[in-house]
């Protein structure tokens, strides 16, 4: 018979694992519930039709949504091709190239690097020489955050493509670059798209890199060459203010942002798992 001590230890471990899981889930539920409850109260159609108001006034977040959308799109346009190209290099040459090994290593460091350092880097690069903040600088900062995500997922997706495909194509005399662009990309496309969408979800919510690049703009501005309103910085400014109307708008913006980011995440993971079965 098992001594009591061992049974107790086992039971304690079981309890601990259950408690730990409950602990993690409680925070998730609490945070999401708060965001939904507070945000829903301020969720009105005017959120999407009116601009950011002066203190004490009512309005919406139209210019912020627009600015965020533009910067995220430009970041995708800048970062995705570079990321896919670099990921292709890692996948195709990863085994026998020292450059690929180093780049893979450094890429993973960049993935977890503090985003505020990236923001300062782009400030020194694009804001200081220009003499003013700009939406374009914000887009560059977001592109740098996006880059390692796309590189990593492209690398993984392309590695998963079975070798028989490559060997069959070689046997048919297809040149190497065509193999990659026509065949391997098609085969790994779902993985690459997954990576881009996950990257999109990540950069949509990033605040720190935009603090010193795009700054903010209380008026309507569609120009990437000037400070551009964006959702995370507006939420930051409004939440840290004393005005109740601004708090309400901040929660509404937080709800929309969270719904977008989590919705994208769930959708991507759901379809990825479905595809893998």
């Amino acid at each position: 018979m098992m001594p009591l001590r061992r049974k107790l230890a086992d039971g304690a471990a079981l309890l601990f694992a259950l408690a730990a899981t409950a602990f993690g889930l409680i925070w998730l539920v609490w945070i999401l519930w708060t965001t939904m409850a507070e945000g829903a109260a301020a969720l009105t159609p005017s959120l999407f039709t009116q601009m950011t108001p002066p203190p004490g006034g009512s309005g919406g977040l139209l210019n912020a949504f627009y600015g965020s959308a533009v910067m995220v799109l430009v970041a995708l346009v800048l970062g995705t091709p570079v990321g896919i190209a670099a990921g292709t290099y890692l996948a195709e040459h990863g085994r026998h190239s020292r450059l690929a090994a180093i780049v893979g290593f450094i890429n993973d460091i960049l993935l977890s690097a503090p985003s505020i350092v990236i923001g300062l880097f782009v400030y020194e690069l694009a804001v200081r020489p220009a003499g003013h903040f700009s939406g374009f600088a914000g887009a560059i900062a977001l592109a740098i955050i996006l880059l390692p995500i796309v590189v990593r997922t492209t690398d993984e997706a392309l590695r998963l493509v079975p070798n028989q495909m490559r060997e069959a194509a070689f046997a048919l005399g297809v040149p190497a670059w065509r193999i990659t662009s026509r065949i391997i990309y098609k085969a790994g496309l779902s993985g690459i798209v997954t990576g881009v969408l996950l990257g999109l979800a990540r950069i949509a919510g990033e605040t720190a890199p935009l603090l010193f690049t795009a700054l903010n703009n209380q008026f309507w501005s569609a120009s990437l060459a000037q400070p551009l309103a964006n959702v995370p910085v507006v939420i930051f400014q409004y939440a840290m203010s004393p005005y109740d109307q601004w708090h309400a708008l901040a929660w509404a913006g937080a709800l929309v942002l969270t719904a977008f980011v989590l919705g994208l995440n769930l959708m991507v993971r759901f379809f990825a798992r479905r595809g893998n079965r």
Partner: protein
Amino acid sequence: MSPPPHLAPSSGAAADRLFRLVTAGAAWLVLIVLGGAAVSMAWGGRLAFETFGWRFIASRDWDPVSGKFGALIPIYGTLATSIIALLIAVPVSIGIALFLTDIAPRWLRAPIGMAIELLAAIPSIIYGMWGLFVFAPFMAAHVEPWLTGKLGGLPVIGPLFTGPPIGIGLLTASVVLGIMIIPFITAVARDVFNAVPSSLKEAAVALGSTRWEILSRVTLPYTRSAIIGAIFLGLGRALGETMAVTFVLGNAHDLSPSLLMPSNSIAAAIANEFTEADTELYRSSLIALAFLLFVVTFLVLCAAKLMLMRVGRTHGRSQ
């Protein structure tokens, strides 16, 4: 995977070279970005380093008006919040990983796993807002008075729990940070727990081990490097976290032994003060702080990667 043949048909050779050049160029760009960030932080901080020398790291000053800056308080805040966050996150993450790999019924594993991963997907500004408006008042009303009352008078740890219960401070920031890094550590732990060869686990079961004994005597020792790597990964993330901490840490350039007092971290100081830094030296001091943060984070993440590679986990999760 076999290397691409260098005997491609001649019509494709130039295109092959071009393609290889483009992809290699993109790969180089990744290196250039990281290197560029490091160099630009060092360059931007050089005025501060020249002015203050090594004393910059040990100085408690922070006086923008008379131009005296020191990194000690932001460094302290960064380290204190990150370490306490780890103390909370590591046991919880291992517990969740144990639950997900061993205890939970199969149909429950994917949904709960995805739920935990959602914690990582929530933007950090949401953590910050929730922390400021919901969690800090909760801590101020229910937790901090209890801590001050029960532990504030004790001999050694007493000074850690003194001060007005305002909710904003090191402890609240550390808890929020801990919650944020749970999914990263859990993800790695879950992967490596699953990767333990079942033959080892089955042998242990055959010898009559309990679940706890398998975890403590087989799984954890086998995955020790990876778990340490995961801890470093969590630490690296915690060190650089900005928005969640900025909301609830209190922006106080103040060094106090109490965990209940407001403080400052490197990332929060930069986020709050950079756009208003009005002298070259002020800006340079903030960039110097960023450089220090970058160096420490780089070393920690390198250590994490090396540990994770040792167990053959060359890929973590693309969070």
